[in-house]
């Protein structure tokens, strides 16, 4: 076991070192340094680029997110929104650019330390643990705070028990906050799609993150469910003070909800500003009229 944890630590260390050695970009770095030293900037991206084979999914994207705002990132399907979230959460490694999270700068975010960096996320396609109950799925969201070993768990020693109790209490609070009481003890895989999306939000919120990344939390929902989810997202910001990046491809959904909106199209940021500014932007209008789902914004996952 000791060997195992050493191995894991070395692996993380190695990816951090390779992060430090990554391509230098003096101008972007200076901009990033300035931004990440500002206490009101939770996240700053600078010159992010990534390509898959021949496809440039993102090129030269900058983005700052300030404390307590709901920051929407919109764009048609394939614009690179999920890639952006995956880079911020360390699942993809950008070919270019740097990411500053709460004052720490990375070229590759270590995904296994993401929760401890204060970042939680949901996935565009559900990523729940189908074999666990709703409550246990949510409780897993606090796994990064656990210290007790498996021996302490088997023996039921005080530290394991107090961790369990603390996490159960937080889980109950989130279950109540998102109105999941009636399904809390059901296997998550047996819930309808809309509720599963809500459980994923709960699992992210229970971590009490500083920054919450939501990848199309309302996709595939009915209009009522969308309105409900929008209410929860706003309440999460208002009551828990969490900063939110909200990915959506439907421009309508985010207008009433977000403080600032960035628009991606073919991997480039074509606009950034308040909802009103963005809506009036000619480049945005062109991008949206040019795509099939610009009219009604409906998307089937």
């Amino acid at each position: 076991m000791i060997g195992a944890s050493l191995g894991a630590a070395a692996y993380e260390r190695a990816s951090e070192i390779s992060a430090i050695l990554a391509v230098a970009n003096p101008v972007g770095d200076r901009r990033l340094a300035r931004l990440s030293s500002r206490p009101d900037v939770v996240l700053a991206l600078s010159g992010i680029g990534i390509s898959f084979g021949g496809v440039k999914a993102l090129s030269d994207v900058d983005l700052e997110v300030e404390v307590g705002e709901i920051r929407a990132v919109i764009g048609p399907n394939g614009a690179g929104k999920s890639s952006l979230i995956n880079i911020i959460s360390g699942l993809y490694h950008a070919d270019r650019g740097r990411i500053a999270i709460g004052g720490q700068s990375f070229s590759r975010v270590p995904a296994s330390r993401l929760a401890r960096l204060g970042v939680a996320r949901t996935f565009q396609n559900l990523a729940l643990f189908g074999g666990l109950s709703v409550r246990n799925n949510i409780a897993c969201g606090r796994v990064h705070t656990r210290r007790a070993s498996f021996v302490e768990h088997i023996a039921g020693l005080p530290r394991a028990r107090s961790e369990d109790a603390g996490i159960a209490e937080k889980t109950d609070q989130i279950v109540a906050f998102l109105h999941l009481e009636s399904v809390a003890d059901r296997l998550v895989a047996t819930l309808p799609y809309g509720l599963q999306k809500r459980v994923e939000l709960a699992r992210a919120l229970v971590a009490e993150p500083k920054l919450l990344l939501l990848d199309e939390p309302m996709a595939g929902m009915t209009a009522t469910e969308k309105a409900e989810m929008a209410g929860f997202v706003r309440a999460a910001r208002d009551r828990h003070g969490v900063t939110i990046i909200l990915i959506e491809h439907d421009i309508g959904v985010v207008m009433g909800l977000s403080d600032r909106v960035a628009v991606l199209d073919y991997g480039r940021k074509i606009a950034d500003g308040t909802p009103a500014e963005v809506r009036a932007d000619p480049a945005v209008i062109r991008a949206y009229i040019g795509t099939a789902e610009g009219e009604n914004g409906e998307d089937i996952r």
Partner: protein
Amino acid sequence: MAVQALDAARLPVDWAKLVQKLALATALFVVAYGVVPAYASGYLVEAILLPFLALSLAAVGLNLLTGYCGQLSLGSSAFMAVGAFGAYNFNLRVEGLPLAVTMILAGISAAGFGVVFGLPSLRLRGFYLAVSTLAAQFFVQWALTKFGWFSNDNPSGVISAPHLAVAGLSLDSATGRYLLSVTTVMVLTALVWRLVNSATGRNFIAVRDNETAARVIGVPVLRTKLLAFAISSFIIGIAGVLWAFTYLRTVEPAGFNLDRSFQILFIILIGGLASIRGAFLGAAFIVVLPLFLSRLGAFLFGGLFDSGVLDMSQRIVLGALIIIFLIAEPSGLSALFDRLKRRIGSRSS
């Protein structure tokens, strides 16, 4: 189905259920320590209960790794061999080592071995991982036959199991070996039950169900997989000790070939993945099936049904059953059992 049971602990205390559980546990103890030692025939103990107990324990161990943590392994037999030969050598080379300590040391040897052969799981998945665990199988068979030291330089490589005694009390009789076996299995199963219902057990399930999501929320994925290999191999190693010491009464590499690994995998497939009860149901099935087939064959075909035909018919029936289970009831006998219980419950009420 089996996983649903995990969450029972979170429900408010249900007194009727608690009483029912207590009654069940009491009945289990009375049967295990009273009825069986007093009334079971030597044949029942030697030919059915001893292999059933050892295989059940091995299946509990494999289910932890494959059923709960989602890591497919074909190395079970190798881990059993490491346990059995480990116990033999600890017993042989350390004067006066208590049996319990011998068994724990054997389990730890198997655990260390399991971690080493679990390392590929950090990169490989599913079928590819299963193939890489075959390496454990071949390596162990090779090492045990190549280095005579493991078998105390016995020319045939087949060594008889040592005397079994706890606190001066001999356990060499069939009943004694049964008591050793049933106690070991109950204690380890109870510990595994605590484990799978703990946060560690939920980490196993998280890694199995969605490794990416598990990593992002902070489950130490690499450590969790290796821990699953370690604990699983520990238990399978001790099952190997029981297999060799209480059932076969000999320790030999041939007792731990690839067939045994498949047998244990089939037990958890038939019994039900991620279910402790399934490991026992599956093991009972696998142990009783050949006896049942040979009786049936002798009844239908008389002398034509020799051991060769029996072996073949057993393989065919088993193969067909596994395919049927995988398609029609992936949650195995354990789920069938639940459904039956519910149907009886609804009829009586």
